[in-house]
């Protein structure tokens, strides 16, 4: 059994090459469309001529979600090493201590979570 990460490099190489090859193949096989308007049509706007650019300022709530994700994901990552080593600590008799520590951590997490809810960060409807 291999336990290293190098096989994934090979896996990635083969997968990427396969996908790139298929994309290349389609450009060779597909019918040629020399008409420029046909090859580069306007973006679909439900049949209305496109106006302006789609990329613009976006609703700030999506960014708040991203920020909250980063906060909680980093904290969730802290839980992983704790979970892995919990059984070892339990074997050495330190189980209760480790459990209490994680309880404190979770409580702090919950305090932050409730603060977030109180602040209305999760309020999806417009307050107005």
């Amino acid at each position, binding site marked *: 059994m291999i336990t290293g990460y190098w096989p994934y490099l090979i896996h990635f190489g083969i997968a990427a090459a396969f*996908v790139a090859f298929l994309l290349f193949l389609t450009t060779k096989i597909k019918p040629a469309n020399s008409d420029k308007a046909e090859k580069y049509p306007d973006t*679909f706007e439900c049949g209305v001529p496109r106006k302006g650019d*789609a990329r613009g300022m976006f609703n700030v709530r999506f960014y708040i*979600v991203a920020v909250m*994700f980063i906060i909680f994901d980093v904290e969730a990552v802290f839980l*992983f090493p704790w979970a892995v080593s*919990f059984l070892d600590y339990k074997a050495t008799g330190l189980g209760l201590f480790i459990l209490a520590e*994680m309880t404190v951590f979770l409580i702090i997490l919950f305090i932050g979570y409730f603060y977030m809810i109180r602040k209305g960060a999760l309020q*999806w409807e417009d307050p107005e």
Partner: protein
Amino acid sequence: MAWYQTEIFWVIVKVAVILFVILTGGAYYTLAERRWAAFFQMRLGPNRAGFWGLLQPLADGIKFILKMETFPRNADLFLFMLAPVISTVTSLMLWGAIPFTPIIELPEAAQKITGSKSFILQVSNPNAGVLYMFAVSSLAVYGILIAGWSSNNKYSLLASVRATAQMISYELSLGLSIIPIILMTGSLDLYTIIETQKNSWFLFTLPGFLAFWIFLVSIFAESNRMPFDLAEAESELIVGYHTEYGGFKFAFFMISEYMNLITLSLLAAILFLGGWTLPDFISSAISNVWLQHAAGIGLFLLKAFFFVFLFVWVRWSVPRFRYDQLMDIGWKVMLPASLVIVFIAGIYVYLK
């Protein structure tokens, strides 16, 4: 040592086999979905290409290849081409960490050829296999986000931003729902997780049972599947982030979605339903080692198949959530619930 006895050669062989299986599986999942959907909707579904429509994926593939290629005029062409590649490559990469078989002791003759004593259909088994799965699967967000951004279409952009917010929200509860299992196993590697469940699946332990439901809901949301398929909500955003895609680029998105579903089904079977392990009373009844392996692997695939069917079953039975409801469920129900379950699991493991 001959060239065919090296590790690299066997890695390449395994990768080739795995890629072939996953691509075929993804393609046939599309057929299965359509047939099952037709069954739920009291119609026939695709049944013309080959017996029972079995050649339909092939016909679809040919059609996709022969489609004329179009690029939106104001799109970012490089990113436009890159997005389906990212989606597909990440979902192809996911199968690298899944142990499809237990370690099989090879007979004498085979040992001489392969040069190794045992065989396992798994590209590699790193000691953080679970983390590898989550890391790679969260890369899939980029495919969707880049697709929406590069096509410069308002619906696509909105859909991709939605999908991104949705996927990262549910990734939290997905990650947290694994922690009870890691607590009980004390390891992040998938092989050990499976072996620990030999006589009792994690589903039948208290924290595992609670975490299973969080996990189940989260994988539906992770894979943008009904009732959480807001990224492809037809009645609001046309078809979402791949509105501008056609031909094989669209096929890549579609097949990667189905490959992800298969991967998540396998993962659910591994994490909660014991993978290919057979309980002692069954394995002692089967004397032949090879029969044991076959029964185990068959059961494993059967468990995964249940989830594969569940995805389709749920999709055609429920309407989709509204976006604010979706975020409410993710942040106000799933996240605190999964944190509480982590706490319960800690106490459970401590008391055991």
